[in-house]
């Protein structure tokens, strides 16, 4: 019995999903968690088990789509949900890419090349097995550019509309991609010029011609504006709506990107940069001008991609847009490191370019040899980028995977959570999950925690003895201590207000102290 191409791809996808799941679950058993997945786990627990304004947690936890996709898998297992989501999501990404590839290229070599990357590229394995939302960013990034390139060919509204929808989803996977729109401003003009029915082929002359004829000029402006609108109105309107929802439900337009209660990255990214740059063995952060070079070092395949599109200025510009985007990110967020996902998008983009243009190369043999060599190099650079990463989550992923030794990064949180779990059933603990979300995530019964999403949290902060039996305080050595009210300054302050209450240390770790509230009166 012969199996069809789509069945074959499906089988490969299932194999890939199983492969990722095995690695992801294995790493999970070794104790590897990252801040993002723990954050999702904690929010999921609040929604399923919490008491209070859960709808706000559900609506305003950001990024929205990764959280929701994790949420779906939490029905199976809360702690493995992020890993399951990323493993299956990455396998689906492979399927989408492979479908696009096989429908355009008969030659199986390219499929196997992509398969090799998905099986062995450390970056893709990181995206698939870490439980982070990189897989969604890559998927929608791919679909956005895929539809845009299809629009260049077909000039149909369908593809530009789908591209726009993909851009919306991309932004709701990582808000920073909103800045990608900035670099499409000149690009859309180039697209419009290209689509005008002119005899002249060269873009610059087409621009000259269309600006010097009143009717063409009017047409060009109308069309450029129309493409802007059709491409960007959905993302812009969605962001405005989302911000308005944030405003009505939290009183802050930017709550979803600025509040540590809404998103994990606010504190983690910042702290990661601070720790690295002030640590004793000072490491040089990425220099702006080197970012593009780093990308090329990470993914030399992108050079091949640009070469393939050399004949079409505006299409080549499209491929170059993400370079401008990450350079911009580096300038705008100068106190942050660029995450691995911003490098991985180039890998996906390069594969996309191959899908469209690989067959245009005449000497296929040489081309395939070059591609094979480049891919092998990329497997190495992918590893290097993870291993030498300045971001702790990334580095720890590869060291745990290679070392295959238990990862104790979350040991302290688990230890404290273990103690809280052992407390009497009816005791309540006041804690601030802006920074203590890992502890909340590992706590078996989240109902015994008084957390900021609950209306009574503010009252509990003022008069903890009325609501809670314990308070979790961040020690002075806790790197996040400045970002919570429940730190070492809290108890002296609360003592002056309520002198009739005493606080007794019951459990201490390096970064946390659990106090028992003892009412004297």
């Amino acid at each position, binding site marked *: 019995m012969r199996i069809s191409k789509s069945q074959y791809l499906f089988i490969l996808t299932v194999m890939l999903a199983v492969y990722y799941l095995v690695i992801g679950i294995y790493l999970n058993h070794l104790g590897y968690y990252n801040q993002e997945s723990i954050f999702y786990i904690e929010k999921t627990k609040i929604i399923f088990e919490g008491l209070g*304004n859960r*709808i*706000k947690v559900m*609506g305003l936890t950001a990024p929205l789509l990764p959280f929701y996709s994790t949420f779906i898998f939490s029905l199976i297992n809360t702690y493995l949900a992020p890993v399951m989501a990323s493993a299956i999501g990455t396998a689906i990404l492979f399927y989408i890419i492979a479908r696009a590839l096989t429908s355009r290229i008969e030659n199986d070599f390219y499929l196997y090349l992509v398969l090799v990357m998905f099986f062995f590229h450390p970056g893709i394995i990181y995206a698939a097995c870490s439980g982070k939302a990189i897989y969604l960013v890559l998927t929608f990034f791919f679909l956005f550019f895929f539809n845009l390139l299809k629009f260049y060919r*077909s*000039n*149909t*509204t*369908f593809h*530009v*509309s*789908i591209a726009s929808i993909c851009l919306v989803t991309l932004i709701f996977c990582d808000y920073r991609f909103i800045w990608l729109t900035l670099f499409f401003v000149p690009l859309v003009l180039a697209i419009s010029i290209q689509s005008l029915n002119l005899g002249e082929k060269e873009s610059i002359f087409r621009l000259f011609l269309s600006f010097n004829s009143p009717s063409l000029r009017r*047409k060009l402006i*109308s*069309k450029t*504006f*129309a493409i802007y*609108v*059709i491409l960007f*109105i*959905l993302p812009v*309107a*969605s962001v405005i*709506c989302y911000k*308005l*929802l944030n405003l*009505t*439900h939290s009183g802050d337009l930017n709550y979803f990107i600025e509040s540590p209660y809404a998103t994990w990255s606010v504190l983690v990214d910042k702290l990661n940069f601070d720790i690295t740059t002030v640590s004793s063995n000072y490491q040089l952060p990425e220099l702006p001008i080197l970012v593009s070079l780093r990308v090329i070092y990470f993914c030399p395949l992108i050079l091949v991609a640009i070469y393939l599109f050399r004949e079409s200025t505006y299409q080549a510009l499209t491929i170059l847009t993400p370079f401008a985007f990450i350079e911009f990110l580096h300038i705008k967020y100068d106190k942050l490191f660029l995450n691995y996902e911003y490098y991985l998008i180039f890998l996906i983009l390069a594969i996309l370019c191959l899908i469209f243009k690989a067959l245009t190369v005449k000497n296929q043999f040489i081309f395939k040899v070059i591609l094979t060599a480049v891919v092998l190099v990329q497997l190495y650079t992918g590893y290097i980028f993870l291993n030498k990463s300045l971001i702790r989550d990334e580095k720890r992923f590869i060291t745990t995977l290679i070392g295959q030794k238990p990862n104790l990064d979350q040991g302290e949180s688990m230890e404290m959570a273990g103690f809280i779990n052992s407390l009497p059933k009816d005791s309540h603990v006041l804690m601030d999950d802006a920074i203590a979300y890992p502890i909340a995530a590992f706590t078996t019964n989240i109902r015994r925690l008084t957390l900021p999403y609950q209306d009574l949290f503010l009252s509990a902060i003022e008069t903890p003895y009325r609501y809670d039996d314990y308070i979790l305080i961040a020690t002075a050595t806790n790197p996040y201590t400045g970002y919570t009210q429940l730190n070492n300054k809290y108890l002296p302050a609360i003592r002056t207000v309520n002198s009739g209450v005493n606080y007794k240390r019951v459990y201490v770790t390096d970064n946390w102290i659990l106090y028992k509230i003892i009412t004297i009166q």
Partner: protein
Amino acid sequence: MSISIPELLVNDGFITPGDQGKIHAFAARSGSSYAKIALNFGYISRKNYERSLINAGFVFAPVREEAFDIEVLKKIELKFANDHVALPLRIENNKVVTLMTDPSNQLFIDFVRFTYDLEPEIIVARDLDITWLSHKLLGEKYVKSSVYELLRRDPSSSASITFTTPQLVFIFALIAVTTIGLVLRFKDTSIIINVIISMFFLVAIIFKLFLALVGSRFELHQAVTKSDVRNIVDDELPQYTILLPVYKEDKLIKKLIWNLQSLDYPREQLDVKLLIEEDDDKTLQAVQNLDFPAVFEVIVVPFHMPKTKPKACNYGLHFSKGKYLTIYDAEDIPDTDQLKKVVALFAKLPERYICIQSALNYFNRNENFLTRMFTLEYSYWFDYMLPGLDTLDIPIPLGGTSNHFKMDALIELGAWDPFNVTEDADLGVRAYAKGYKVAIVNSTTYEEANNDPLNWIRQRSRWIKGYMQTYLVHMRNPATLIRKIGFKGFLGFNFFVGATSATFLVYPLLLAIFISYLVFDLSTIRTLFPDWVLFMAIFNLMVGNILMIYVNMMAVFKRRYFELILFAIANPVYWLMHSAAAYMGLYQLITNPFYWEKTNHGLSKVNNPTNVVK
């Protein structure tokens, strides 16, 4: 006087000898009289015909008030009288008083002699007067058939009964349950209603976006290419009937002739029927006063309730001769190659495709705000939504005009429902229910967009009322409908036909809640609805609005109407007009379901050039 009228016309120079031969040949082929062909196929104007006969000594008598004898009329068939533009009225002085446009029509004179065994007493009369009188006196059985045929053959498909008993029971039971719910548990019931309404609103709009995306995917697809049209051999083209139902459209008659003459189709193969109501003297007079030859045959529709367009079309169907049939409005400007494209597409499609819908759009789109909004709406409707429905194999509610039918299948379906005010949408669903299919052709008919708000609301109230009628008719037995059009078709029908009216009814309610909540910050709403309900309702309303605006924005692309794109933002205002029309339609559905809210045409001041397709 024994002078032959054809010879007289040639002698007077109104008809060339070449045309004379053509007319005679065509008359012999078609069974119609010489005068009928000459006056209705563009050979001579009525004024010149009359002038020629008056010069020869004939007197045209006003005949509408002439006395008639039922027994005399019983012996003549309307179609024969119509083909010969002649009518025997009564016996007087041992002669048959006979009205004739062409007093030299020997065939009809012989018919009178043989039938009544008496000599005719000929009164020369204008052809339109004879047509008017003959349809009025002899058309009763045809007009009754036009009204009752569908009801007799397939009563379950007729909208003559608006609400069936089970439907009334359901509606009143629903109202009762809601009322009881509101009395007993006001808050919970309000929450449930709010959630259902806002979810329904969002799902209906997402469905429309989905359809538009599916439709836009094939926007470059050409069902019929230019070379397909070029390869058509004129001599092999079948006879094509065009029905033009008009009512008080006297200002548009000249434009109509110009548009019809521009059609790229052999003149003699066109069977154009201008359907004029019996009481519409204005239009009849406008046709009579034309300075140039007409290219259509006038059919006078005798008075009978309901006075609707589908009844007129059904009546016209009795006199139609074409293999294919289409309907245009008086102000329509079809692409000149539209008929040929349809013939080519019917030849390509399987036998079960019995109708082809052309796209509709507007020639006066830049006239004012309303025409721009209308153009946006029609562009997405015909360029994206209908192709989307077509691709997904969901019943297509046909547009008001430019739907081309296979004549035999149309008759088999029972033609149009005269009690339904959107008979076209109903017919589309009925065709699907019988296993037939509807296709979309890449050809456009340009119409006049309504530029007056009140006129617009009247027109739209009829459409929405018709959609409600159609929905009620086909949902009399949902299980049967699912069996006939499948579950996908059933869902499509509910979301497309049912939801269209419902969303317009619901929209102002949602908007009112939204505005009260945001602007006035009404505390009652906050206490009534928990946060999550308000969150969801506002989310649905905002996302729904944005998506609908987006769908409208997509519409400009295919037509390259880029300058209209920003007007899509004004859609929420435009929908409020829809809502006003929807409530008017709902009121009429209950109080006056068959009333045809007439749309005034010819209000546009925009010149409408013929859309020549090269």
